[in-house]
């Protein structure tokens, strides 16, 4: 079972991106042998109230067993707690929050409260470090990359919290992993979409130093072509067990 935890539906505000509909995503999944995708509502990340896209997201995923919705929650919007409860009730595999895109502090009492609420609800919190390479972003796209210090702080905010961090590169992963206790580090999963393969071999290094149990398959599609995450796995000499763990097994127990 190959699960893409890092997929999006809907348009991107800063450039034309093909393949943003559910049908197009399913076609891309067929093309690349991805069985399931956890999908987020891409335009909502840029809305004042990101949770306003959740109804559409739930509807888009309804009746489509291969797509599982990752609703967005803004912890400084009134009623955010109900968004987490709704996600838990709906069986969402995670909720997402992208504080730098929302224009809020990545570490704050509100963010800590969100982490704690997710911990109580048993729902992992997903955060993206970035969506695009900083060198190519639209001149009006001023959202900062999520700092590694924020992930270290958030995982410490609640002992039951589990985080899924997407679009992180090797230095980011290392800074958080080795800046956390073993218990804290064990509650973080990293998607592989932004980690370099050969000849720098960042992914190979991280699988050796951090461990394959901490990584999950993610692509960032359709902003990024999903073939990239497959290619980097195909360039590794992974055991079948490790590959299966990264492609889905590591999500057991972490996600609902």
């Amino acid at each position, binding site marked *: 079972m190959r699960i893409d935890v890092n997929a999006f539906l809907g348009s991107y505000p800063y450039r034309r991106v*093909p393949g943003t509909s559910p049908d197009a995503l399913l076609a891309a999944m067929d093309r690349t042998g991805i069985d399931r995708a956890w999908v987020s509502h891409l335009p909502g990340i840029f809305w004042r109230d990101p949770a306003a896209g959740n109804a559409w997201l739930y509807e888009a995923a309804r009746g489509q067993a291969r797509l599982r919705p990752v609703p967005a929650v803004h912890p400084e919007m009134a009623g955010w707690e109900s968004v987490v409860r709704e996600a838990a009730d709906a069986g969402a595999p995670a909720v997402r929050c992208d504080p730098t895109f929302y224009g809020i502090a990545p570490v704050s009492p509100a963010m800590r409260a969100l982490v704690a609420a997710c911990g109580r609800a048993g729902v992992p919190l997903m955060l993206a470090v970035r969506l695009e390479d900083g060198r190519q972003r639209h001149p009006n796209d001023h959202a900062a990359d999520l700092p590694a210090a924020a992930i270290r702080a958030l995982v410490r905010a609640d002992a039951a919290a589990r985080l899924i961090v997407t679009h992180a590169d090797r230095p980011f992963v290392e800074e958080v992993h080795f800046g956390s206790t073993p218990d804290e580090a064990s509650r973080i999963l990293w998607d592989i979409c932004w980690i*370099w393969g050969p000849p720098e071999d960042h992914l190979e290094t991280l699988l050796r130093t951090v461990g394959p149990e901490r990584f999950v398959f993610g692509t960032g599609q359709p902003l*990024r072509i999903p073939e990239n995450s497959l290619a980097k796995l195909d360039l590794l000499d992974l055991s079948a067990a490790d590959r299966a763990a990264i492609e889905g097994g590591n999500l057991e127990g972490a996600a609902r």
Partner: protein
Amino acid sequence: MVSHDLTRRLVRFPPVLIDVHAHFLHDRTPRADWRERNASRLRAGERVGITIHVASILGSWGHTSPIYFPSRDDLVYGNDRMLALQREHPARIRGYVTVNPNYTEHALAEIRRCLDAGMIGIKLAASRRADDPLLDPICALARERGVPILHHIWQHRRRDYPGQEASDAVELGRLARRHKSVNFLLAHIGGGGDWTHTLPVLGDMPNVLVDLSGSGVDGGMLEACIGAVGVERLLWGCDLTIETGWAKLRYLEHLLSPADLDLVRWRNAARIFPPGAFPSD
């Protein structure tokens, strides 16, 4: 049923794949792991099916002069190491001679020396703006020797970035218009910056080809490249990330006919590099 004869021919002649944008390291760079990185590139290349890595070494990679402003001594040492790699791996590696246009006479002499020794192209990084007249004698020599120029590009340069005197497609275009009989490789369309700014610039510049390398794997980028310049002006490459090159190749397999894919894999490269540069010629 496939005949034994055809099977033998397919085994003898696997599909050609030329990476037009590769790099290697050496012992006088800041990287203690330079041997491992070089070996990793070749190992990954075998898995992907790269027939030839066309590579450059940018001086000392910052050890004793800046990566994009290499000193004359560092250029000579780096080019010597590049020649050594080409000699060690004659079936797999070809070299670009890297020069710094600020040292005109040195650059011209280094180009002659390294092309005479078997290199097949010229690499210009970001030591001088692409449209600067100092690049003209280098282009004149490229025309005389019949070799292409791979030019480092920042896709849409909005300002001066630290560590390099970068150029974008508009600036390379000015140079390309002055030297219409020289082929230019516009480096790493996925290598940073805004490729949506680059592509519309290239329509009327048949001597500028787009190198698809770079860590960027944006959805829609490859379709836009095909739409902007056509498959005849696309060149496959990896630069610093082989997985992104392989991903783009896999994606192109779904976009292009086998004949068009062959153009991107190697035929376009074979057209612009000197005759006999590759075993497929």
